[in-house]
């Protein structure tokens, strides 16, 4: 294969990547503004804001679902960071007996599907009055979220230079000062990425919410599923675009943090 041919092959692959990724978003955008778009028209015959104004109307059915999703994902993020910080620090900075086992256990929910555990938990939660409640949904979302948060934070702590803490301590810093002025700034980029991951994983949960919430806790994905099967494509498309908002935010942030352009993280990545 000559190198000119090879080069044009590379460029067609790159083009295929861009088209392949974006093509799924195009119908979402167009549908969200369409009023009537029947087969075989390639573009809608009439446009409207109906879907968008319905979503952002506080009296619509969508609004409480949006609020629920936001509250749940925020709570899950907070809890998972509180859980993940000490665990990530222990795994990233310390060697101890049974470390491999702990890592294996924590990674379990990323491999073994959560379906069986969800069925089992549902019955336990019914017994303790946690099913059909916001708290129950938050608790059960912690299962898929925790492994990722611990993983991200432990990799951040693995590159974290503990000597700065020792210096600060020898200068008389109290534990909270150590955390606030030394640890927090150093792990901040990882914390942001970890939090966004946690938020998005919780935000995207469908089956767990459906089972444990039992229809009493309508969230965005539960609503989205209902619209998608009911055939109101304009509303489905608009809601899908709202649904991917946090994911896009994550991408914009990580693009900045993870390319080494950020000094705080770069310092530790280089070591």
């Amino acid at each position, binding site marked *: 294969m000559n190198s000119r041919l090879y080069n044009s092959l590379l460029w067609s692959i790159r083009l295929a990547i861009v088209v392949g990724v*974006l093509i799924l978003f195009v119908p979402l955008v167009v549908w969200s503004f369409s009023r009537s778009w029947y087969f075989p028209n390639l573009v809608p015959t009439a446009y409207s804001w109906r879907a968008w104004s319905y979503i952002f109307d506080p009296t619509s059915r969508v609004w409480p679902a949006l609020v629920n999703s936001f509250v749940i994902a925020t709570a899950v993020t907070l809890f998972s960071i509180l859980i993940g910080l000490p665990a990530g620090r222990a795994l990233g900075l310390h060697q101890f007996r049974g470390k491999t086992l702990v890592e294996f256990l924590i990674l379990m929910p990323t491999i073994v599907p959560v379906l069986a555990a969800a069925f089992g938990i549902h019955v336990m939660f019914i017994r303790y009055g946690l099913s059909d409640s916001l708290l129950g949904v938050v608790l059960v979302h912690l299962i898929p979220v925790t492994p990722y948060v611990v993983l991200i934070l432990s990799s951040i702590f693995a590159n974290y230079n503990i000597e700065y803490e020792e210096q600060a301590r020898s200068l008389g810093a109290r534990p909270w000062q150590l955390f606030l002025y030394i640890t927090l700034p150093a792990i901040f980029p990882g914390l942001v990425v970890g939090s966004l991951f946690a938020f*998005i994983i919780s935000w995207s949960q469908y089956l767990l919410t459906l089972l444990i919430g039992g229809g009493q806790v309508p969230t965005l994905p539960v609503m989205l599923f209902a619209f998608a099967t009911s055939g109101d494509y304009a509303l489905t498309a608009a809601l899908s675009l709202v649904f991917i908002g946090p994911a896009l935010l994550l991408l914009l942030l990580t*693009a900045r943090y993870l390319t080494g352009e950020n000094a705080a993280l770069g310092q530790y990545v280089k070591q």
Partner: protein
Amino acid sequence: MGRERLTALELELESELDYPQVGVRPQAPRPLWSRTLRRLKIPLMLLPALLVIVLLFGGGLVSALLQSLGYMPIIGRHEFTLDAYRHIFRDPVFYRSLGLTLWISLVSTSTAVVLAVISALALRRPFRGKRFVSFIYQLNIPIPHLVGAIGILLLFSQSGFLARLAYFGGLIQQPSDFPALVYDPYALGIILEYVWKTTFFIGVIVLSALQAAGDEYENVARTLGANRWQRLRYVIVPTITPAVLSSSILVFAFTFGSFEVPYLLGQRFPSALPVLAYRQYVNPDLNARPEAMALSIVISVIITLLILLYMKLAKRE
């Protein structure tokens, strides 16, 4: 005063001999509670995370296992039985669902691996617009599968965008002429969604393995006279194999045990195993409950076995 000073100096000198680090003074032994706390420090740091995994996840699994064995004290069943499993393994529906689920996972994982490697190879060298293409490359990784599935529905269904294009191209006259790509027996819509989502996940991992390895080995191979094909076979493939294996394990396990994509894009019968389990679970007949639990346990066991097998094969390689 002078004498005292001298002794202090002497003491410090002496302690320097015992303790090579400058400025570290010998400390009084810590009280017992402090030592216990120090020993418990790491377990305590891990405790909250392990509570979530062991209590919630593990507890859920155990509860599902007990119920799959017919133990349901809530409705007064205390004896253990293998009836649910026996029933499942005798049911042809189970085997059709198992076959379909394996088909979906195998086809989508292997397609995604091939596309991921090709695309990562096209992106690893600097080129004009690399930042933009790399951004697009990561764009759909955090997008929920549900949205991907809706996109597939709008594009590939029989009245979807592709069908309309086919109409204008004169290929079809009406929606039903368009081949069924959604709700179809070959689960093509489901596979398309998984490939769309997971190609770039595997790709990003492969790409970072390629970039971490750098160009050196390839340049050495080139100077030794290796052609493009030989460099691919003997340099690039060994470089990316660990990345491909680990990421494809995750993708396979995910696609095997995942629920919402086949629930939205799959035909009613046969359905993917997780969908079958869910339908049994929401069945108002309480006798279906142990079967749903047994199905979900079987799914978990199959995935664990497949992954162990896969890792064993990978190790031999």
